[in-house]
């Protein structure tokens, strides 16, 4: 129902902290955009500028092609879940949720229906009469979420709306939000630190760092083709391993291991012949089973496991590889213990190479 354009937006706070630099983003109708990035990178700030709660220091914001810089928040038809909840302390949970509807003069019966509906979805029906003070952290967060979803706004802004919920509830809420988005089709911007959420909910992800956009793309693009080392390192958990080595004859060389690279890299690495580059490989793309050994025999090596961390079904192996730290994620089934040795293989079909200086990805 709404398109958004952010053009060259900058935000400098009163204390001269610049929180957002030259932010450019076009959001199509019904998109579900997810902002991710390290704590303090400017996600909330951007959201708050879109909502109209912070002045835009420079740049332009358009909603549905209309310039919004100077439009009051109340006239932007935006519903927002605040990172800090911002519940009305003097109103009951019910009234907190009903507030926005009452203001819009929605008929009483409909308000009641919508609020109770949302409360059911959020599993807070029992608390409708309570004041926020008498709720647990997660319950408060759900009220904050409920306050937004009862509104049929054109744009939804959600700032870490599920961070204080348990995994199960979070999964349930996640799918409720997806359903809501499918039903209402409101353009949504969603901030989260939860990679699963980002991956499963987003039509596009915006990765930020220190106020700058690092990459904009679909979850698949972000995951499979990170634009730079930061994105590669940030998305996925445990983080991507970065290994320094050299390019020699279409091979990537670390220590005495010469890994013959698949053909697809040929053209991109030409220029780096003999130079140092960084190889990025995700822990889950390192195999201990024979699966890829046949394909990339040159990428097999013996790994000294310092710590083996049990993670239910999977284990995380920590160790060093030619003096560089390396983490691999393998099936628990194999029973690899700490302080043992095991044979591992890099899945060279999944690796990326990065320029040492610019940190940008080399391969296309």
């Amino acid at each position, binding site marked *: 129902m709404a398109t958004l354009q952010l053009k060259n937006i900058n935000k400098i706070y009163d204390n001269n902290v610049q929180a957002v630099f030259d932010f450019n983003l076009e959001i199509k109708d019904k998109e579900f955009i997810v902002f991710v990035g390290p704590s303090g990178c400017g996600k909330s700030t951007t959201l708050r500028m879109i909502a109209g709660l912070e002045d835009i220091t420079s740049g332009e914001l358009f909603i549905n092609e209309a310039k919004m810089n100077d*439009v*009051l928040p109340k*006239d932007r038809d935006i519903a927002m879940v605040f*990172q*800090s*909840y911002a*519940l009305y*302390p003097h109103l009951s949970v019910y009234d907190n949720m009903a507030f926005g509807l009452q203001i819009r003069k929605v008929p009483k019966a409909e308000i009641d229906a919508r609020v109770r509906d949302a409360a059911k979805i959020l599993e807070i029906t029992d608390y409708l009469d309570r004041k*926020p*003070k008498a709720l647990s*952290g997660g319950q*408060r967060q759900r009220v904050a979420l409920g306050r937004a979803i009862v509104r049929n706004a054109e744009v939804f802004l959600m700032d870490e709306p599920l961070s204080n919920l348990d995994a199960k509830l979070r999964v349930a809420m996640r799918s409720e939000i997806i359903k809501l988005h499918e039903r209402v089709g409101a353009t949504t911007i969603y901030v989260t630190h939860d990679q699963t959420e980002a991956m499963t909910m987003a039509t596009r992800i915006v990765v930020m760092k220190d106020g700058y956009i690092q990459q904009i793309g679909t979850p698949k693009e972000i995951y499979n083709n990170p634009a730079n080392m930061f994105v590669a390192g940030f998305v996925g958990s445990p983080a991507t391993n970065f290994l320094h080595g050299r390019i020699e004859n279409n091979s990537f060389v670390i220590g005495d291991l010469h890994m013959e690279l698949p053909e697809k890299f040929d053209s991109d690495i030409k220029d780096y012949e003999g130079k140092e580059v960084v190889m990025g490989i995700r822990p889950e793309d390192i195999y201990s089973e024979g699966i890829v050994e046949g394909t990339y025999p040159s990428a097999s090596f013996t790994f000294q496991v310092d710590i083996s961390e049990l993670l239910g079904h999977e284990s995380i192996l920590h160790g060093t590889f030619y003096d560089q730290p390396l983490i691999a994620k393998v099936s628990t089934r194999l029973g690899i213990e700490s302080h043992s040795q095991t044979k591992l293989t890099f899945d060279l079909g999944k690796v990326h190479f990065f320029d040492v200086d610019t940190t940008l990805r080399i391969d296309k």
Partner: protein
Amino acid sequence: MDKKTNRLYRIFIYVALFTLAISIIVPVAWVFLASVKQNSEFYGSPWTMPIGLHFQNFIDAIDKANMGEYFINSIVATGLGLLILLVVALPASYALARFRFKGKKIVNLGFMSGLFINVNYIVVPIFLMLLSWDKGISQIIGQRIFLNNIVVLAIIYAATALPFTIYLLTSYFRTLPKAYEEAAYMDGSGYFRTMVKIMIPMAKPSIITVILFNFLSFWNEYIIALTLMPGASKTLPVGLINLMQSQKAAANYGPMYAGLVIVMLPTLILYIMVQKKLTQGMTLGGLKD
């Protein structure tokens, strides 16, 4: 369209502000002008402009009201009174606002009822009480110490302002989130330090209100100072009586207004100094709720 309503709204705001402002500026300017008028200008229409700037009024006022000495007295009484008041009232308000205990209702009720006591009619009993103390003490140490004592006056100012102050502060302390106290307790802070270091700073706006209002009332207080300081040493408002019109005598309007202007200036200056702090929210950003 909405810009229009917004515009109207802002126009309304400014109209309202200016209307009230003018309704104040005009009369107040009148007072200032009056303070530089000559006596003969006070008869007839009050709205004429002064013929010249008769600053002699101010000199007369300072002279006649003995402002030099009285000013110091007033400063001491007001300042000391405020100090005692805050030291006594802050803990009491804090305790009343943030704790549950046996007897709280009665204490609350007591202070609350104190609000309705009018100093105008208890000042004589206070005087009689101090006098009897004085009689007692003079038999022991051969000296009277309670009457004509600026410190006692300050104490009594503080005492009479207690109900108001406690009532106001209590109602403010009640609105502060408990979480900050809890955080302080976890940091190992005892009740006292929590109160002093954490809660009182957060009550700053209302403490400033209290200071402002009590400064005003102490500074302008007349009847207590008159009664309890019957000697030669007076406070400013009592001294100011010398400028007032007396029965069947020609009035000295000019010096009177000049005196009144002089007396009101400290309060105004204080207000100008602290008014910005009045609206500095002290409790923002600490909580997630």
